[in-house]
Every structure is written in structure tokens, then in C-alpha cells.
């Protein structure tokens, strides 16, 4: 059986969502190809009306565009940016980013849940970027989100799965694909997220700031595939103390 995951009515085989920011436009195509990515994110704020350095001209055909609402400070602004994205032909996918902190760029879960509700009703495939909080994730799921995108660490920090325990709870409890987004700095960290059962990983800064962008995109592809394969195989039993006790605690049980 083919191992796929679904967002709305769309099925994907690649579990690597690639960002398009922070690196040279003419590397986007090679990065997408080496990553084997089927989804690429795009900040609508970067798309221009002019014809010089317009990021839209550099995204290869056949890849699903995932515009984000970067720049929105609340649900209302996110909704407006999403509609604008649809108008300029970016399709029905939308990654919600509601951020009202210019220093750490941490998502505002409350506004994100509100935006999820508004946009799901308008027929968008809504992918909310959020701080991994179970209650907020449930609200977003109930509001019609197509997946949940918790952050692994503050965006751009490359610190890996700093929120691991909370993401694990989301994976266990939320009946939607959980896509780890932000903070993933190395392929090994992406692999770890996948081993835990994440449906996919989204990465940008780690690849954008690598010495060789397309080569790092490829490294991530293999790490994500390896992590997924490990998850499907079922990770082995790990003994906490390293050895079984010689006289069992439960040895007294008689009948």
C-alpha cells in the first residue's frame, strides 16, 4: 500500500513541506526537486505586482502552493490575506500565521483558532501554525482545520524539537495530520519528529541558511523518509534500566 497523507481532499506522498523564504529565488527550483517536495510555502507578502524578483515566477509548476498569512496580527487580517491569496491564483490552501509579537514571532493561538473557523467556512484547506497546546489544537480541529502545525522551537532558531513532549501529546490526541513546523535545524531533528509519528515536517531556515541549499534539501528528504519508515516499522522496545531484574517483584503471585 502507498504511504500517503491527506490534507482536505488532496493526497500527498512526500512528507516534506519546503519553505521558499530566506534564500535565493533561483535556487527554489533545485531545492524543490532535491527535496522531492509536493508542497511549497510562500509568504504572500513577498509576492509583488512588479516583474522584478517576484517569487511567484520562481515556483515550479505542478507543486502545490501553500501561501501563508505572514504579516497578519489577528484573525481578521489573516482572513483578508487568505482571500487575497486566493484572488491572485494561489489556490485554496492556506497556512495561517497570526503573529502579534515582532521579537519572537510566536503564533497567537487564540486568533489562529478564530481565523481557522472563518476560513474553513469559506472552503479553504486550513493549516494553522500554532504553539503546541492541546486545548488550542482541539479548538482548531473543531473549527475545521485540515491539520495542525505545531512549532518545534521558536522560528528561525534551528533548535530542534524543544517542544517535543507537547507535540507528542498532539500526535496522540488529535485526529488530524500533525505537521511539525518551525525550529527544525537539522535533518536528524526532522527524522526524530517523523519517528514520533508526525505526518510531515516543514522546514525553511535550516535549508535556506545551509552552505549548499539544494544539497541540504536532499538531506532532509532522506531524513524524513527514514523517520517515517522507522515509525511505520514500530520502534524497538527500549528497556529503561538496561537489564531485567533477576528476582521479579511480582514473583510472589500464587494463583
Amino acid at each position, binding site marked *: 500500500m502507498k504511504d500517503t497523507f491527506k490534507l482536505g481532499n488532496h493526497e500527498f506522498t512526500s512528507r516534506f513541506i519546503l519553505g521558499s*523564504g*530566506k*534564500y*535565493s*529565488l533561483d535556487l527554489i527550483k533545485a531545492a524543490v526537486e532535491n527535496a522531492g517536495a509536493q508542497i511549497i510555502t510562500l*509568504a*504572500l*507578502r*513577498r*509576492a*509583488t*505586482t*512588479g*516583474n*522584478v*524578483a*517576484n517569487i511567484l515566477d520562481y515556483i515550479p509548476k505542478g507543486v502545490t502552493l501553500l501561501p501563508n498569512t505572514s*504579516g*497578519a*496580527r489577528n484573525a481578521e*487580517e489573516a482572513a*483578508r*490575506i487568505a482571500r*487575497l491569496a486566493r484572488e491572485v491564483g494561489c489556490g485554496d490552501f492556506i497556512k495561517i500565521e497570526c*503573529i*502579534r*509579537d*515582532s*521579537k519572537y*514571532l510566536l503564533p497567537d493561538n487564540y486568533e489562529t483558532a478564530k481565523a481557522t473557523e472563518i476560513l474553513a467556512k469559506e472552503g479553504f484547506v486550513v493549516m494553522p501554525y500554532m504553539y503546541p497546546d492541546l486545548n488550542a489544537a482541539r479548538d482548531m480541529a473543531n473549527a475545521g482545520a485540515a491539520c495542525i502545525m505545531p512549532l518545534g522551537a521558536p522560528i*528561525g*532558531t*534551528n533548535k530542534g524539537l524543544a517542544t517535543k513532549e507537547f507535540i507528542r501529546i498532539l500526535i496522540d490526541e488529535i485526529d488530524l495530520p500533525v505537521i511539525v513546523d518551525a525550529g527544525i535545524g537539522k535533518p536528524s531533528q526532522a527524522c526524530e519528529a517523523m519517528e514520533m509519528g508526525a505526518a510531515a515536517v516543514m522546514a525553511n*531556515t535550516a535549508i*535556506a*541558511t545551509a552552505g549548499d541549499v539544494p544539497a541540504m534539501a536532499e538531506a532532509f528528504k532522506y531524513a524524513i523518509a527514514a523517520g517515517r519508515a522507522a515509525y511505520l516499522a514500530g520502534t524497538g522496545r527500549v528497556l529503561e534500566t538496561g537489564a531485567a531484574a533477576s528476582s521479579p517483584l511480582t514473583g510472589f503471585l500464587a494463583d
Partner: protein
Amino acid sequence: MEEIKELDPKNRIDHMTYLPDMEIINSDLDKRVVAAMNEYDYTLFTANDVLAALEKDVLSPRDFQALLSPAAEPLLEQIARRAQRETRKHFGNSVMMFTPVYIANYCENFCIYCGFNRHNKIRRAKLSFEEMEREFEAIAKTGLQEVLILTGESRKGSDVKYIGEACKLARKYFKVIGLEVYPMNSGEYKYLHECGADYVTVFQETYNSDKYETLHLAGHKRIWPYRFNAQERAILGGMRGVGFAALLGLDDFRKDGFATGYHAYLLQQKYPHAEIAISCPRLRPIINNDKINPKDVHERQLLQVICAYRLFLPFASITISTRESNTFRKHVISIAATKISAGVSTGIGGHIEGEEAKGDAQFEINDNASVDYVYREIEEMGMQPVMSDYIYV
């Protein structure tokens, strides 16, 4: 010779007292910045303080002070490397491009170092809306999507309504509109925001109000605290982002650099959604006064200040001025700056090829490079020129 009465100190107005119609807001940021700046003794810092600051993920105001101190100078190479990593983390290899558009150069103030000052004999002009539109058209053809609209500081010569109309016209051609005009009240900022502007930059020039008093001899600009609170009023008026700067070289540049960064830091703490930008101007020679020159702020010190801004405020946009040489600008965008102007004319008009500017320039620029040239240079540095990173909502 015209008699200039403000040359005699007894004829000057009090620079700390608001004039009628100047809005007073509830803010203690000016007191906090001044108190911290006055306490800052940069001679007390050692190389160890600097190295400790470089070890940290998030720098404190004290770390920022260490980076601005003379003890940091010998460590500039290390500081620059750390600044470059921080810039990459937050901005990748993006470099935003923009151009300033001077639409008027009337000015009511008497700032002794500025080419627009009201006693300086220069050609005064303001663009008609027709001229402005032709100017915008010419700029848009170069591919630029962001403009910074500037005026001299004259409410009579370039009133709020005139600036508002300029913003509306600019919105037809550009995605991002910033303003660098005289400080105004929050209601006026709200109006200009509705006209399409979203960024306001105000240079404080120097945070030392005693020094400020001796340089800004007349006009509304003389009122130091009203100028200080301009960014906060702009945010209250609904602007998305605000820009800060001290004109380095007017006074003690280390103290002014510290006050600039700390001002921005406190404002972002109070209004976490506010986007922060910093400019790093040094003094430049002006028409009719070529004796003005940056004294103690050489390129080395300027780079030190820029890197300190980057490490203390890693998320802030940092603009590098056309006042600087092409070589300096080129290298600084690969280390710490994230925004660069191109195709600059500081005269009134002057973006249309083959046409002379209608009014004289505020200062002499060092780098005359065209948009195409700067674009290619950014690419040659392995960086990505970005025309727009903003959406008006």
C-alpha cells in the same frame, strides 16, 4: 546678511516644553531611556564583558552596552561574525530594496548641520501631484515596490493633507510606503495610515537633550520630547512599524547608539506587534557648509554600532544609508544590514532620467548607484534582492 536672532541663546524657545497643539501621551519611555543613557559609562566594560555578551542567545541592555564600548573594538571581527549568523537566522540572505522620494524641501527649523535649514539659501520646491505621479511612475519602472516619502519639516510648506495625497498616489504604484516627515499627533498618523502609509521613521538626531538644544535652534523640531515620542504616537495611530536613528557624530556616538537601540527595545516591549527598524546615519557635508564631517565615527566604529544593533535587536530591520560608500554598503548588507536604498536622489524630484531636480538636496550622497546596479551587486554578494516583504491589511 540676514540677521539670525536664534544665534543668541536668549532668543531661543525652551526645547523641553511642548508647543500648543502638540499631543501629550502617557509615556515614560523618554525618562527611562535618558536615565539609562546617563548611567551608561562605557569605560567600565572589559573584553570579558564583550565575550560574555557574544555567548548569549538573547542579549540584555547591559550586553548591548558592552558591545558599544571601546573594549569591543578589538573584537570587531568576532562580533561581525556573530552578527552575520544572527542576520541569516532572521532574514536569510534577503536584502530589501527601496528608494527615498523627496517631495518637498520647505523647512521651518534651524538645525545648523542640515542643508534644508530655513536660513540656508537653497532652491526650495515642492512637487505638484502631477510631478509626483511622474516621479512614482519612473521609480516603479525600475522594479522597486517600496518608497520612503520625505519632506522638509514644514507644516505650512507640506501639510498633512498634502502628504496624505502623496501616500494615496504612491499606493497606486507601490506595495510599501514609509514616511520620514515632521513628527505629528496620533490622529494625523492615523489619517496617513488610512492614506496608505504604514511605516514612520523619525531621527532623534541626538538623545542628549542639552546637545540637541545647541543644534536645533528654532522651529517645532526644537522640542526634544515631542520628537522622542513620535514613534509611539505613530503606533497609537495604527502604523505597523517605526524607525529610529541617531545621527551619529553629533554627540557621543556610543551613548546615542545605546539610546537608539534601547528606545526601540522599550517601545517593542510596550507594543509587541510593532515592527522595528533602525537607520545608521553619520553626518555628511551639506551645501554651503563643507566643514561638516563625522569626527570620531569612522567606518570601524560605524560597523561596531550596526553589529551591536543587530545582536541586541536581531529581529529589527537595519537600513544602510547612501551617505556611505558603495564598498561599505555592499559589505554591511552581508553582515548586519537588511535594507538598502538604490537609485537615490535627495533633491526634490530627480528620479526621471534627463530631468534636473526641482529643489536642492538635503545632503550630499556618497553612493549614486542605480537600482539595476545595486540589484546586481546584491546578487553578486550571494544575496537575494527583495522588492516587497509586506502586505497592507
